[in-house]
């Protein structure tokens, strides 16, 4: 039954993917800039430019180009980037683990900040903690992440010299560990490489802190709202009346509140895959979002398309996983 649900969801996803590719294709084709000139340089002759355009298919009608693109994409070929001269698939496979590592740890930090605060704010309906949670929510959502990154770099690197330089994921002289999951920290842990672990962890601190601080807000808010509702719900009051220990009651309430919180985390996750771009840029992270932005700004069309498709697929997978978690958490949605 579960398999049927998954199969149904995947079937449902295909027209969506198609729509996404179609819209981005049309959009990206509208970006001004002649890729043939970019690739061959201004010293190229008109002949070689025309030959290249023919080869890349740019002289064909739009719908033909689209069909060709879809055909190639289904086989995993998203074309090449004229900036890196490498296939987009290769570039993305190299950069997406960086983005995912950053976003995952950033989200974990956001949860670590937002969730306890939300629970505390729901438990204590007034007092300094509640007030602080309220202010934090507001301010965190208002801070521009690139600005916060800048301030953190200024304070912790330039002035205090505590943190690692804001360049990439690992110290240049340190060898990255063998690629297992793609996450430098996790891979170093698995392999047991202390040097790589400390270096990659050190480089993660500031960007993760930035993302964590800024994105804790929505998590805090959702936690607070649903926990408040849970605390005032009948079954919790019933449990309290019965004299069940605080911790047990808390756990029940948390369980009831979890689905909504998980939803917001998944929404954030999907958003951050493309939304962590500015932080990636400030820290020269080498992530996929940075790659896509470079593509748009320099009229390098294929990376943008590839990134959009990849991140859309990722988001859809995340939503599917979340729905499955829902199944597990909330018996009401089963059957």
């Amino acid at each position, binding site marked *: 039954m579960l398999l049927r649900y998954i199969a149904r969801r995947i079937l449902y996803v295909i027209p969506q993917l198609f729509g996404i590719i179609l819209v981005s294709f049309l959009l990206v084709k509208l970006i001004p800039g002649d890729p043939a000139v970019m690739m061959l*340089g201004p010293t190229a002759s008109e002949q070689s430019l025309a030959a290249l355009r023919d080869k890349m298919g740019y002289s064909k009608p739009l719908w033909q180009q689209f069909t060709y693109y879809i055909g190639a994409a289904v086989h995993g070929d998203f074309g090449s980037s004229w900036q890196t001269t490498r296939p987009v698939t290769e570039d993305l496979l190299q950069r997406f683990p960086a983005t995912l590592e950053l976003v995952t740890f950033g989200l974990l930090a956001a949860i670590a900040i937002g969730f306890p605060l939300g629970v505390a704010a729901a438990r204590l309906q007034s007092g300094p903690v509640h007030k602080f949670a309220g202010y934090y929510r507001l301010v965190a959502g208002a801070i521009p992440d690139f600005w916060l990154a800048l301030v953190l770099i200024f304070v912790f690197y330039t002035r205090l*010299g505590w943190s690692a330089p804001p360049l990439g994921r690992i110290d240049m*002289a340190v060898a990255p560990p063998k690629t297992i999951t793609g996450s430098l920290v996790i891979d170093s842990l698995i392999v047991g490489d202390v040097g790589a672990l400390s270096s990659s962890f050190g480089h993660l601190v500031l960007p993760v802190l930035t993302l964590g601080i800024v994105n804790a807000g929505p998590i805090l808010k959702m936690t607070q709202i649903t926990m408040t509702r849970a605390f005032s719900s009948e079954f919790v009051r019933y449990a309290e009346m019965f004299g069940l220990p605080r911790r047990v009651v808390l756990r029940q309430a948390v369980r009831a509140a979890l689905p909504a919180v998980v939803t917001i985390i998944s929404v954030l996750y999907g958003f951050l895959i493309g939304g962590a771009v500015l932080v990636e840029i*400030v820290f020269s992270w080498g992530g996929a979002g940075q*790659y896509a932005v470079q593509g748009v700004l320099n009229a390098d069309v294929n990376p943008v398309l590839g990134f959009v498709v990849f991140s859309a697929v990722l988001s859809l997978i995340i939503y599917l996983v979340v729905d499955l978690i829902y199944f597990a958490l909330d018996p009401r949605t089963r059957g």
Partner: protein
Amino acid sequence: MSRDGTGISSPDRRDVLKRGASLAGAVALPGGVISNAIAATSTTLVIAAPATPQSLDWNFDVSLGTFEAIAALYDNLLEFKKIPDPKQPGASREDIADHPDMPAGIAVQGKLAESFELDPAGKFIRFQLRQGIKSNWGNELTAEDVKWTWDRKFGLGAIGAFFLSTLGLENKEGVKVEGKYTVTINLDHPNPLLAKLQPNLYAPIIDSTKCKQESTTDDPWARKFLENNSAGFGPYRLNQLQRGQQAVFKAREDYYRGKPAMDTVIFREVPTSATRASLLQGGAVDIAQYLQPLEIIKLRSERGVAVDSVNASFMIWLELNAQIEPFGNPKVRKAMNFAFPQEQVLKTVFQGLASPLNGCMPNIYPGFTDKFWTYKYDPEMAKALLKEAGLSSGFKTSIAYNAGDPVQEPIAILYQTALRNIGVELELKKIPPATFYNAVSERKQPIIFYVDSPWCPDVGYSMTLYFNSKSFVNYSNYKNDDVDALIRDTARTNDQAKRLTMMTNAQQTVMSEAPWVFIAYPGYHMTRRANLKGFTYYTSNNIRFQDFSREA
């Protein structure tokens, strides 16, 4: 470096961690294959640059990263002798002055070539190659390599074509193999640059044996191969190239001049200059390239960091497109110069690190003259000129600038305010760095920034680049028949004295017609760790990894 100002240098936590980590670690290749561990960081040179090399095929690519790579991967037939820099103690530079007593009239010596013979009339040059020189693929240097390299220029055109036309080399039979290690270049007309062009960064010799193996019927000149690999006789070989991230170079044990002191070079892309400066300050990199003036000044006072400032061939200017009105009128162009707050820009944007551009070619090249510099900031004069041109009510125009060059936007903003005072409305157009060069060569902008330097230290060469109406690099569309004639004659005679006179006349005309708004000579500022020695300035404005060594 301790920050407590006691003057005692103590290794900080970062240094210890780094050294420890590097002793334990190694440089990884793509795919996770680990190569041999590097012995110590003192023989690893780490460079923070704005961008990694694009294509390594110098026949087509003029990106900054490629310049640095080519200098290490390839060698030339001849090179300029080195002298200590007159302005910066500890640094060296090429000796590009005229030396009438030396062969060829310049201070060149053999590099890949053991010796050379230049025809006094300037119609041929003969090279005797050194024997036993191996490329990074193990193939020996022979005359065939030289021939193939020049044939490639004929075959592919583009930048190669520029060299051919500069020399007046019209067909490939002009390059003759006369023996296993002897090769000549023969011209129909005398040309003064036969020897002077050889040290040019983009005139090195390719390993033709390897390239022939890599070529196909569709790709007879190994374009695909040379885009991502090197086949040359230089001191380094390419270990890894991840565009957008880093390039790694390894010193060649079998380099004919001995292995360079720096065994490994990590060329890392760091797009923001502020980050590059931070990295240098913190000791994470040895060299930070292309920093902003304020950053350079701040680094001067940092302990552990040194700044070498030398005169350079770089110039920065605004192209006034003669084919877009109102810049077809020389009076308007002169007015634009009188309205430009040059001194202010030099003080605030360049922080005094640059000198005024008071001529139309590099002031370090023989033949330069500044005696025709008549402009200064004079808004009244500008207004009067505009009135003479019939534009007393001003006009509207736009300026395009490179988003990646941090000095251009402030200059544009300052110019905008200054132009407002004479009734000219200036709209700013920001162009992303990767497409900026295309915007320049398209010649569709009325005003656009350009930063460049002619690499060959020759007055005729410099003038023809920008002011010959047929030159590809003449982005201002400047056309003056007299100047064209002078340039043409200068290219056809070996008589240096005569050439200097002709080019002085040309400079006079050009300066009075103001095809550019003259901004500055930015100079070359090498920001490096204090214990790094060996910086040498080249007219191609790039560093050569092989020059560097570390102080004990």
